[in-house]
């Protein structure tokens, strides 16, 4: 951590803040009246400004300041955030981001143009000049004037509490006049045995940042004026032109902690005033503040302080390393368990069990540390949808659910591109244009739902649109045209839709700038399958399409089913296993017709002995493992089912990149390697066999 460049820390923090800002701005487009969103956007801006100045991003600080000032009327609720304003604000955000991430890539002119735009929108009903000044500071904010507040020293008579006056209430009232910085003076507190619990020993030193009348202060203390000593002196100047109390940060309130003569016993002040003190600790340049991920909720910023303490930012590579070590540990532990099981030494067995328990909890903890809520990913698409919906003039409502669902961070990274593609497809091809929607009696606004939900050891991510649905006839025609199926072949709609995942398959009549570039559906499928996930789509004509991604929770360690075929041992990911049944003699007899009867349903099966060209005699009782990818079930015939195995996945070398039916390898307890079967490929293989059979039977 200490080796990390503080500027880098700021960049990371800023990029999280940008997500908060962008989220808040986009939400504002939907709910322009939500003050919480405005505040959240401003908090993010303000932090960027404050930290930017601290880390030498002067341009960022000055631009953000201008931006903040121009946007001030929105914050005060004087003008509503219109779509134009939000677009400008988003552009400004992008500009600030560029300033931070790659200052060379941008120019001051862009910033000036954005500010001009902003001022024009903001001041549509008022001259621009009036906007840029903070003349009308909100009542709570410090005012730019010679006298910026009051310095009070409060000393109450000791019996004050007994007579029903509560100094804390009085301080509360004082805080209502404006932001207060209250420091209790504790030097009057006697030793415990001399102390009367009903007496008041505390004195207070208060800085009131409000240019209110002296009468207003006297009013606060009207009942106790004869029972207290009040020293009142005007405060010369506000330390910094703080725009608003909510955003008051340490960097604008020069080290108020230093002024504290004694430890704080009780600080009574508006939350604003307490904040600088609370912020003081986590604020130094190399602050250990961090989270593993950013949470884009609007309130994220508000909770910053707590999270800063509760979380630590760790470099991703370190987590990967840790995972590798845990993987090795799990393998070593498997060997130990095997060794202990073969011996008769009870104490070794006990130790082996203990280590097994520890290793598995260490594995779970490590995997947990790598988990990131998928919400951070979802947040990115809001901008995409906002822009696409504008470019295509298709108003789209974007709904996300299950943002809290956690996935391995590597998965989150890998998911971004496929999801971008699916969302583009959904808007470009799924959602109809407004005229068509109206004609079909649908709402003018389309709807895209992005949802994530846990399902066993898997996470389901769905992209759902309420557009026109897939055009099955057109897909079929295209498939026939490309020679993928024989004309007139009997296929279910579901089977026809699978052609969408064929490389080079596109039914788009015109290739638009949006969907024509980037990855295709086949690449999406491949990416998901590389993550040991599966993709499935369902559609209802006129009602929309749902694409479902099933993903394992992690890429590093999976629960596997260890099986034996001939001499070789293999792993089937347990998440794909539906059930294990014995291959009956009757099934065995139906040679050539590779179907099993599973409770009245025909399931194609593959004999792994044949695929692996295993030597030796097969076991007498062959077992069948039913695996599935979504809807499709396939049986795998094996010699022996050995049992569950904690599978630490090792990828195959590049030399084996053309091996399709294996997705990786693992090391077993005895040190030998076992290959991990690629379920999706096996299912595809079984299906192609079935199709060939169909064709040969038809011939």
């Amino acid at each position, binding site marked *: 951590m200490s080796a990390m460049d503080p500027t880098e820390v700021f960049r990371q923090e800023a990029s999280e803040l940008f997500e908060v800002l962008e989220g808040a701005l986009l939400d504002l487009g939907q709910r322009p009246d939500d003050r919480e969103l405005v505040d959240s956007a401003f908090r993010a801006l303000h932090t960027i400004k404050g930290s930017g100045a601290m880390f030498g991003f002067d341009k960022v600080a000055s631009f953000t300041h201008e931006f903040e000032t121009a946007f001030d009327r929105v914050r005060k609720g004087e003008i509503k955030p219109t779509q134009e304003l939000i677009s400008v604000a988003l552009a400004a955000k992008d500009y600030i981001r560029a300033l931070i991430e790659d200052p060379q890539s941008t120019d001051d002119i862009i910033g000036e143009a954005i500010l001009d735009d902003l001022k024009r929108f903001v001041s549509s009903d008022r001259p621009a000049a009036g906007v840029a000044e903070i003349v009308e500071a909100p009542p709570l904010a410090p005012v730019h004037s010679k006298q910026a507040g009051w310095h009070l020293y409060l000393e109450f008579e000791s019996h004050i*509490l*007994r*007579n*029903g*006056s*509560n100094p804390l*209430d009085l301080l*509360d*009232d004082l805080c209502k006049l404006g932001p207060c910085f209250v420091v209790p003076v504790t030097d009057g507190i006697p030793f415990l045995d001399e102390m009367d619990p*009903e007496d008041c020993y505390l004195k207070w030193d208060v800085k009131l940042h409000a240019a209110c009348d002296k009468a207003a202060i006297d009013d606060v203390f*009207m*009942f106790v004026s*004869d*029972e207290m000593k009040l020293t009142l002196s005007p405060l010369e100047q506000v330390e910094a032109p703080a725009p608003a109390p909510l955003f008051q940060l340490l960097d604008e309130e020069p080290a108020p902690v230093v002024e504290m003569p004694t430890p704080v016993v009780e600080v009574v002040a508006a939350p604003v005033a307490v904040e600088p003190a609370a912020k003081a600790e986590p604020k130094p340049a190399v602050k250990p503040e961090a989270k593993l991920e950013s949470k884009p909720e609007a309130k994220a910023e508000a909770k910053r302080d707590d999270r800063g303490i509760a979380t630590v930012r760790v470099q991703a590579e370190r987590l990967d390393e840790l995972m590798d070590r845990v993987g090795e540990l799990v393998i070593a532990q498997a060997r130990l368990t095997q060794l202990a099981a073969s011996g008769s030494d009870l104490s070794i067995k006990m130790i082996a069990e203990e280590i097994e328990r520890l290793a598995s909890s260490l594995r779970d903890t490590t995997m947990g540390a790598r988990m990131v809520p998928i919400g951070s990913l979802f947040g990115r698409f809001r901008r995409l949808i906002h822009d696409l919906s504008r470019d295509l003039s298709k108003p789209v409502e974007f709904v996300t659910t299950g943002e809290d669902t956690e996935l391995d961070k590597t998965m989150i990274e890998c998911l971004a591109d496929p999801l971008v593609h699916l969302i583009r497809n959904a808007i470009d091809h799924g959602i109809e244009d407004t005229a068509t929607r109206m004609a079909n009696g649908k709402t003018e606004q389309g709807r895209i739902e992005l949802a994530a939900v846990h399902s066993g050891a898997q996470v389901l991510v769905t992209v759902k649109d309420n557009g026109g649905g897939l055009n099955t006839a057109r897909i079929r025609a295209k498939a026939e045209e490309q020679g993928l199926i024989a004309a007139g072949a009997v296929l279910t709609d579901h089977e026809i839709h699978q052609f969408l995942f064929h490389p080079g398959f596109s039914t788009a009549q015109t290739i638009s700038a949006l969907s024509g570039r980037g990855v295709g559906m086949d690449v999406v499928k491949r990416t998901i399958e590389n993550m040991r996930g599966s993709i499935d789509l369902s559609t209802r004509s006129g009602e929309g399409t749902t694409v479902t991604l099933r993903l394992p929770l992690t890429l590093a360690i999976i629960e596997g089913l260890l099986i034996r075929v001939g001499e070789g041992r293999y792993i089937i990911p347990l998440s794909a296993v539906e059930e294990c049944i014995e291959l009956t003699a009757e099934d065995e007899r139906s040679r050539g017709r590779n179907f099993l009867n599973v409770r009245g349903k025909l399931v194609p099966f593959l004999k792994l002995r044949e695929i692996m060209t295993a030597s030796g005699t097969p076991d007498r009782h062959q077992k069948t493992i039913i695996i599935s990818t979504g809807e499709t079930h396939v049986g795998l015939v094996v010699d022996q089912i050995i049992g569950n195995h904690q599978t630490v996945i090792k990828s195959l070398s590049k030399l084996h990149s053309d091996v399709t039916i294996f997705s990786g390898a693992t090391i077993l307890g005895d040190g030998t390697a076992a290959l991990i079967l690629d379920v999706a490929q096996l299912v595809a293989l079984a299906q192609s066999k079935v199709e060939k059979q169909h064709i040969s039977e038809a011939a």
Partner: protein
Amino acid sequence: MATILTVDDSPSIRQMIKVVLEPAGHSVIEAGDGAQGLAKAQAGKLDLVITDLNMPVMNGLELIKALRKLPSAVGMPIVFLTTESNDAVKQEAKSAGATGWITKPFKPEQLLAVVAKLVRA
């Protein structure tokens, strides 16, 4: 919200206090003189006492002193109503243990402001 005892020999003043404070969510208990007021204060926990000074049987000053001797009334705010807004009376009542005062005649807002100042949710 708060339980407030109003002690006054004039029912109309008590009524006025009741009419102002009850809509603000407080529950108001009435007493016609200091002795009654003390009995009510002994009977249950109060958040605030608003008392007149000139009353029969036991006057406001005596009530305040008596209340301050009750263990349950330590730190309880006591407000007195006074027509003579002169400092001598105030001083006397304050040294007897009163927390604040309201000068008669008062407007509902003034009463509410004083109550809000002394009674916290």
